[in-house]
């Protein structure tokens, strides 16, 4: 029995075991290495993807529950190589350091920008509670998000 996933608009099948975390299917089978399995515990956010539009840690989603769902990874947020609004703002603000956390940051912030165009600094901090960055101290990420909100 296989699972049917729609990943970044492509319909794909996987023959993985039902409890295999989605992050492993994305990386090992579909070679989409944007989502990173860093903690595998739901704490760090490096593995976040949009599942039916909602930020979801792909390390905690078993294949059986990804079946039939619409998945968007960070690779699918810059179609034809054009950066989306938050990606461009992060780059312009020189916010990225090692980059490990950024696929998840971009997923959380893309969702925030589309659902909360009126978000405040506090809303941004709350939205990033599940995105851990070991390098930047967050300040430039928050500034970039405020910039993206102001220019969106």
């Amino acid at each position, binding site marked *: 029995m296989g699972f049917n996933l729609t990943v970044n608009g492509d319909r794909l099948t996987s023959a*993985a*075991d*039902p*409890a*295999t*975390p989605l992050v*492993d299917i994305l990386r*090992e089978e579909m070679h989409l290495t944007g989502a990173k*399995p*860093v*903690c*595998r*515990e*739901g*704490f*760090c*956010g490096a593995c*976040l993807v949009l599942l039916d539009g*909602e*930020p*979801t*840690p792909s*390390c*905690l*989603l*078993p294949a*059986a*529950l990804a*079946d039939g769902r619409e998945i968007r990874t960070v690779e699918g947020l810059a179609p034809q190589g054009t950066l989306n609004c938050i990606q461009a703002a992060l780059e312009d603000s020189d916010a990225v350091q090692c980059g490990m956390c950024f696929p998840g940051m971009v997923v*959380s912030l893309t969702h925030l920008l589309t659902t909360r165009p009126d978000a405040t600094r506090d809303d941004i901090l*709350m*939205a990033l*509670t*599940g995105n*851990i960055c070991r390098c930047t101290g967050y300040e430039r990420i928050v500034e970039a998000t405020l910039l993206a909100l102001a220019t969106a």
Partner: protein
Amino acid sequence: MMSGSPIQNIPVSSRDAPASIYVAPSLAAARDALSEYGPVGAPLAGGTWIMRSPIRHEPLRTHYVAIGRIAELTAVQIESDAIEIGAAVTHAALAAALDDLPEFAGLAAAAGGSANPAIRAMATIGGNLATSEFFAADCVPALLCLDAAVEISGRNDHERIGLADFLAVRSTLAPGRLVTRIILPRARRKTAHVRLPLRRAGDYPVAIVSLSVSVDAANRVQAARIAVGSVEPSARRWPRLEAALIGHPLDAAAAARRAAELADEFVGRDSVDAPAWYRVSVLPGLVRRAVIAALGS
């Protein structure tokens, strides 16, 4: 948790994969499947605890019955005398449903402030109550203050028991049975839920204090329920502190002083993220914050 256990990247192949995950379309189908699987099966709700089994070096069950898409289990019904919460209601959905009900401010804070936004959209209240090995559950102390009853169903029957009784038996729940609803009577009261995580948010709380009080016209406490979570392996009420508040004006500093006098009845649990004594020592401060929050609610 991140601050406590070593980070491991376990490759797919070494996972102890279960034979099946059955996505149940209805409660009847879930009950049938659980009853057929017996001791080798278990419900899978949000999966936020089950999917971390490899990190805890625990084997997965052979069969899981996914209950997260069952309509009967994902609804919150608000009646004039009680509210009923389906066991598969997520923390985020519960917080949203309670948004304009001030008497449930404590439970809304518990559900809306636990973990992080993405986890709150997955983790369920039933999973929160059923996981006896998870000591830092937020909804458990909040519900202990609300006189919650838990409905447990098997293939052909169901029973309703008080939450404290459920907590005592949850690790030995008979195979095939699952929590289906949590029932809360409505009442005029002030409620609050305060927690101390190591960072401002996102971490497990070191200690939790939940509170529910009714006061008379002169602000004197008529009834009080106070529950402590994450300090001991299971959340429990604090009857001596409840009794000490009754008849006195509701006052944060006075409540904190009584809490400091009575806190030695807790035997904190030691873990990598916080020593036992620390969990107990923060209780008076959390009681003070809880009373301030309740007075504002």
